[in-house]
Each structure stands twice: as C-alpha cells, then as structure tokens.
C-alpha cells in the first residue's frame, strides 16, 4: 500500500483508519517544492493504543520521490504524524500564516491594537503550538521576534482586493471576507481537538496581550526572548530606564503578577 503526501500535508496530523503494516509512504515532490528544497529529513511517529513508535525518514533527494517505512503491526486505527518538515513553498507558507492570523483576529471582534501586537501574538501562538511554528519562521529584529509574512499578509490585503485584513488607525481587523473565512473554519473544524485548543490559545493571547501598550509588549517579550532583540546599546539603555515604571504600571493594572514584577525589576514591590 502506498500513501503520497504533498505540500502542506507534511505539516499535518493525518488520520487514517487503514492498516499501516508494511506501508510505504511516498514523499513525492511537486512543482515549486522541488525547486526549493528546505529539509533533509522528516521525523515521524505512529501511535496505536497509546504506544508511540518514532522514526526518522531521510529524504534522499528533494527532487525525486523517496520512500520510507513506518514500523507498525497489523490491525486498524493507526495514525501517523509528521514532525519538523518544511515542505511548503512561499505561497503555501503565506496561506498557512493567513489561516492562523484569521484565527487570532476572528476570536475577538475588537481589532488587534497594532501590527506589532499581531506580529508578537502570532509568535506566542507559534510557541504554544508546534504546528503553527511549522509554517512560520520568526527572526530577530530591533522589536524582537518578527515575521515579514505577517506584514506582507496584512499589507497586501484590504476590503478592495477581497483580502482578509484591514489595517487602520484602530489596528488590524478582519474584513467581511476574512470574517467569513473565520466562520467557515469554525464550522469545518469545530470537532477537531487541535483546532479547539488552538482557538482557546488564540483567545487567551488576545485577552492578555491586546491590553498591553507597545512598550509593555516589548518589555515582556524581551524578558522571555532577549535573543530575538537586535536593538542598539542606546535602545537597551532607554528600555532599562523605562523598565521600572512600565513594570509598576503593569502590576498596578493587574496585567502581571507580583512575582513577574519582581522578576522584571529585580526587587520586591515597595
């Protein structure tokens, strides 16, 4: 028996009810994927009755179909999961990012305060859900973890070109078309546990991060991911001077716990 996986399927959980004993998975190459090989191997696992079997499949070439085997015994209800593959081309990556941006924006009717907020909120979502991280890469910037795809997705989109997002003085929100896509995904994935947990994660992110000012957002980001900040010594000095005031303000407004305040400023509250 052979199964072919293409493009975005690499980054998904594929449920099968068939028998995978001696199954050959064919990792086929296609179109632009073949012109832009991004990975050397695919980690996979087979789960059956709570027993996890893991294995690696090395792709011999990004340009030729490659076969590999999943180890498993007979009987039904196996499912397999592919980890860590980056098999998407630019268009597929953008579509994937847009899907999660729509989820983040859709779970709350209010706009996300700024595109900087949206960028960081997607980063937090990608930290929480490896499947989101599979389709988006964040790089260091003066403002911390940054994805150009967030900016291009929002920038290319408007009510007029039937895009999903609008950026205006109030922040970033979904267009009517974007709202429809959100509703469609709700109906399509309502019973999927991954979707349901990712939706809850998005709701939590919006409830906690939307209320932060840009300065507070960057301070909290820096406290967890200083390696993503490529700011100058001057910026760091200024930020350090503001840290005490911002931290106290966040604590007083019940945005952070007292324990977090102590971590940020290095001493207990007066």
């Amino acid at each position, binding site marked *: 028996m052979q199964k072919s996986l293409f493009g975005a399927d690499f980054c998904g959980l594929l449920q099968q009810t068939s028998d995978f004993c001696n199954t050959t998975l064919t990792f086929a190459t296609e179109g632009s994927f073949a012109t832009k090989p991004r990975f050397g191997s695919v980690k996979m696992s087979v789960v059956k009755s709570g027993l996890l079997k893991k294995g690696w499949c090395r792709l011999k070439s990004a340009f030729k179909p490659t076969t590999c085997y999943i180890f498993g015994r007979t009987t039904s209800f196996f499912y397999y999961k592919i980890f860590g593959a980056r098999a998407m081309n630019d268009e597929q990556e953008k579509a994937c990012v847009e899907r999660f941006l729509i989820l983040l924006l859709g779970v709350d009717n209010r706009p996300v305060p700024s595109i900087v907020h949206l960028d960081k909120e997607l980063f937090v979502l990608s930290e929480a859900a490896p499947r989101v991280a599979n389709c988006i890469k964040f790089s260091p910037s003066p403002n911390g973890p940054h994805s150009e795809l967030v900016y291009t997705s929002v920038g290319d989109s408007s009510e007029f070109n039937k895009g999903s997002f609008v950026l205006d003085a109030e922040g970033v929100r979904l267009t009517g078309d974007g709202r429809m896509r959100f509703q469609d995904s709700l109906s399509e994935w309502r019973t999927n546990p*991954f979707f349901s947990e990712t939706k809850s994660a998005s709701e939590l992110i919006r409830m906690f991060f939307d209320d932060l000012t840009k300065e507070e957002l960057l301070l909290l980001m820096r406290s967890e991911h200083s390696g993503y900040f490529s700011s100058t010594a001057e910026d760091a000095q200024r930020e350090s001077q503001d840290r005490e005031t911002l931290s106290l303000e966040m604590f007083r407004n019940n945005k952070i716990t*007292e324990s977090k305040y102590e971590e940020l400023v290095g001493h207990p509250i007066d």
Partner: protein
Amino acid sequence: MIADSTFYLVFLKDIDKPLYFKKIVDAHDFLLAPLVDSEIQHRLKKHNKSANYAYIVNNNKITKFDNSKVNLGATIKYFFGPSQIKVGEHEVVGHAFHLLHTPNVDLCCILDDKDARRIVKKRLLALYNILKWTTDFIKDSCCVSGVLEKDECIQIFTDMKKVGSLKVSDARYDRILNEIKSGQPV
C-alpha cells in the same frame, strides 16, 4: 477538576493522608498539568514521601494532560513570575480556561496562589468565578458533595492546622472546623 500542586501536597506531603486523597479523587475526574506533576514529585521526594506519589500514578481518575500539540500555559507565561511558572500555575490557568469553554465539561479549578488569582480575576472573570481554594474544596467535599464523612473532614483540618499547612491562620482553621461541626457557615 484541575488543581495546582497545593491541593495534592496537602494530602500527600503536609498531613500525609493519602487515603483521604484517594477518596476525594475517586469521586471526580482530575486533570494534572505536567509542571504541577513535576512539582509534586519534586516536593514529595524532598520530604521523603515519594511513596505517596503512587496514589497519583496508580489512580485512573487522574489524567496527565498532553501539552505537546498546544501548550495553553505557554500563551500566558509572560504574565507570571518564575516561581509560579516553576510550579505550573500558568498551565493550570491556561488549561482551565480551555476546559471552561469545552461543551459538556462541568469544571472546578483549585488555585491557591493569591497572586495568580488576582490576574485571573482581572483577565478571565468567567474562570475566576469557578475558582476554589483548597480549604473550600475539602470543606465542600464533606458539607456539599458528601464525599467525605464529617469526622474525616474534621480530622483533615485538625491535621492541617497542626502542621501549619497552606499558611492559613489558626483562627481561620477554627472557623472552618466550627462550620463543619455545626453543619452551617459561622
């Protein structure tokens, strides 16, 4: 049910009454957060009570939840301090929030960290409304659900008072004990 480490440690470490713990747990379905689990193991080991961990692993009413697909706690860890993250308070809050919005789940969440509760009250009011202190949950196990007998509950709180569990004042313990004995709030 989802609880932070305090609830488990009261029974398995502070008063060392695993059978009462089992009695309560058997009456519910508990979800255990990974960091809460680590903290319990660590504290039991530190106090030479590792044997009591068997009451968690061998109980099929306690399920450790899997964070590998979506780690809900990771979304809010930015707002909690290191001491809270170490013991998994953020995981309890994150997962409880998800369960609260899951159909057909009648959720109760035990959270004893005052500092964490303050944030929950401000940010997640619906979740705050179902939060319970460990003391209230134990008391309700006797006075509301009837899972514990009155004398068992009195024994638990007497022991908790004796060992100074939960940093609760003696006066508060006396008030709780009077409530249990009289069968109504004092």
